[in-house]
């Protein structure tokens, strides 16, 4: 079913009309496709490494290179996912304190505290638990074992970081499935794979989201 742009849906869906509207079913399906795709990218290298070492033990160094290559593919994908919540290197925006005040008004105290430590806003949704940053969001699926990483942003120059986060949070609250449809999926995989690539504060937030998801 194409993305629904009717009343109640995000107007931004009109820009991605060809995408099926996200749902629990489509997210589970997407997760499986990512797992298959990851296996298709890595298993051939692992098999080739094993076959080479078995046929000619002298080729073991080449097998090792193949294994490193397979491992690098896994890590690169996870790093791509982690990048969606990585903060760009820049100085503090002059209007950040004002924007932070508005964002603080939108969330409760526990979420405010987590944001102060991690710069990510935790938001419980129907599809899972979200962590919203200034240029992307993580969706920890029920059970906490799989995470989807989305690239999504406000294409406006010079907005303070907390304003960017508030934009995404309000869009998410307006239409969660629409938000997951509009956003570009950068990575879907095991939570532990992503955790290793995240900066320490974001790891804290991911752990909090996974715990929240498991407790539902």
């Amino acid at each position, binding site marked *: 079913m194409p993305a629904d742009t009717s009343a*109640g849906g995000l107007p931004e869906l009109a820009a991605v009309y060809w995408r099926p509207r996200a749902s629990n079913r489509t997210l589970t399906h997407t997760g499986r496709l990512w797992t298959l795709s990851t296996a298709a990218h890595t298993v051939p290298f692992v098999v080739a490494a094993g076959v080479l070492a078995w046929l000619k033990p002298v080729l073991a160094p080449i097998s090792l290179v193949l294994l490193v290559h397979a491992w690098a593919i896994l890590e690169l994908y996870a790093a791509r996912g982690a990048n969606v919540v990585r903060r760009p290197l820049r100085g503090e925006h002059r209007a950040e304190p004002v924007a932070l005040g508005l964002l603080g008004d939108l969330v409760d105290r526990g979420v405010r505290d987590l944001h102060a430590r991690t710069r990510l806003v935790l938001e419980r949704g129907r599809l899972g638990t979200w962590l919203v940053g200034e240029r992307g969001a993580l969706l920890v699926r029920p059970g906490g074992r799989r995470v989807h990483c989305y690239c999504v942003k406000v294409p406006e120059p010079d907005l303070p970081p907390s304003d960017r986060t508030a934009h995404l949070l309000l869009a998410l609250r307006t239409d969660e499935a629409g938000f997951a449809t509009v956003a570009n999926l950068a990575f879907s995989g095991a939570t532990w794979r992503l955790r290793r690539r995240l900066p320490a504060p974001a790891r804290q937030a991911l752990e909090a989201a996974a715990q929240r998801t498991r407790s539902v």
Partner: protein
Amino acid sequence: MEPAPRLQEAQVSRLVRMDQTGHTTVAEWTADDPSAIEVAIAAFRAELDQGYFAVVSAGEGQAEQVRDLPVDASLVILRRPIAGG
């Protein structure tokens, strides 16, 4: 006869735009001030014409996009469109 004292001041509602300054209050009104409401409605329409979307809180973790100014809402927030990165 003196008018009955008002038990409570009318609540001030705000139309806020998220922008480069953090946020800007575009309009303020109270339910008992028709002229302020008119000004707020005009400002609201002008912002929508500029490409902003208006959102009001609809309970915990929920928000609703509105196309007409909800006069009884305490806070209406104007946001820019989002896009996949």
